[in-house]
């Protein structure tokens, strides 16, 4: 049995997580992996957006509940996964703070149908710039896959 704390997306609102890239280099992002959960495969089109510190959209991609199910090759309607949001070409991001957002259109949340972003417990991949005092303060879970160049 596994327990997760998640923030469900309310109709008309967004879920947002700030993320800082701290090295003086240009990151070539291969993929974003938000840890998402769909409850009852809700209808609608979901959008994962990357905004810069001026809140300008630098990248976005849409997907549906069906896409999340396909990613896991499942027909079940209650699915959690690090969903791959993959730019067609590597996304170049410089050092700075970005905001990753989840929004939706044509979506109505209910107790039986919703999409949620699972919160991270004890993140071994990303440092936090604050100390959560309880699990409700954990950030929204996300993985970033970046291309690396050089001699392997």
């Amino acid at each position, binding site marked *: 049995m*596994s*327990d997760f704390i998640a923030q469900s997306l309310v109709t008309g609102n967004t879920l947002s997580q700030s993320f800082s890239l701290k090295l003086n280099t240009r990151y070539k992002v291969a993929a974003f992996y938000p840890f998402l959960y769909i*409850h009852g495969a809700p209808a609608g089109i979901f959008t994962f957006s990357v905004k810069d510190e001026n809140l300008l959209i630098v990248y976005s991609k849409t997907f549906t509940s069906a896409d999340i199910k396909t990613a896991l090759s499942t027909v079940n309607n*209650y699915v959690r996964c690090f969903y791959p949001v993959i730019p067609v070409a590597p996304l170049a991001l410089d050092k700075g703070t970005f905001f990753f957002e989840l929004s939706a259109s044509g979506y109505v949340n209910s107790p039986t149908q919703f999409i949620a972003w699972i919160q991270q417990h004890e993140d071994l991949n990303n440092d936090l710039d604050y100390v959560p005092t309880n699990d409700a303060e954990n950030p929204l879970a996300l993985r970033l896959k970046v291309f690396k160049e050089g001699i392997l």
Partner: protein
Amino acid sequence: MTMRVLSFADGFSAATAPDISGTQENYTIANNVVASTNVSGLIFNNLTVKSVFAKLEVERSHIIAAVPVYYRQVIDVVFHWDGAAWNLSPANYTGSDLLQSSTVVNGQDVVLSIVAATGQVQYKSGNMIGTSYIGNFKFSITRIAVV
């Protein structure tokens, strides 16, 4: 955003809903429901949860002769699986006496029940004869998961 606590069985996907706790769940009370009717989506699986603690607000209102009439009850409800059947135990209410054990007597009354075998929560409601009727169950639920 609404915080939810999800309790999953093993695996990344499931054909049935996992248990969810810790957030408010709102359901509509239709007017004059004579036969026990499902509270759609409120059902407990005894394989994954055997005890459920709920804070429940029951709210019904209508307008009679241009005067709004409100009824609101706040009550604790425990749903529990005794090994063979689901049971329901309401207690400690404040406000209007809306929730009745088995029979609707007054127009504002509500009967809350649970199907013993399936864990499906159901209700009946009295007939509020005014205009602009509104009725809601608002649950704050904690499900004690089977470990």
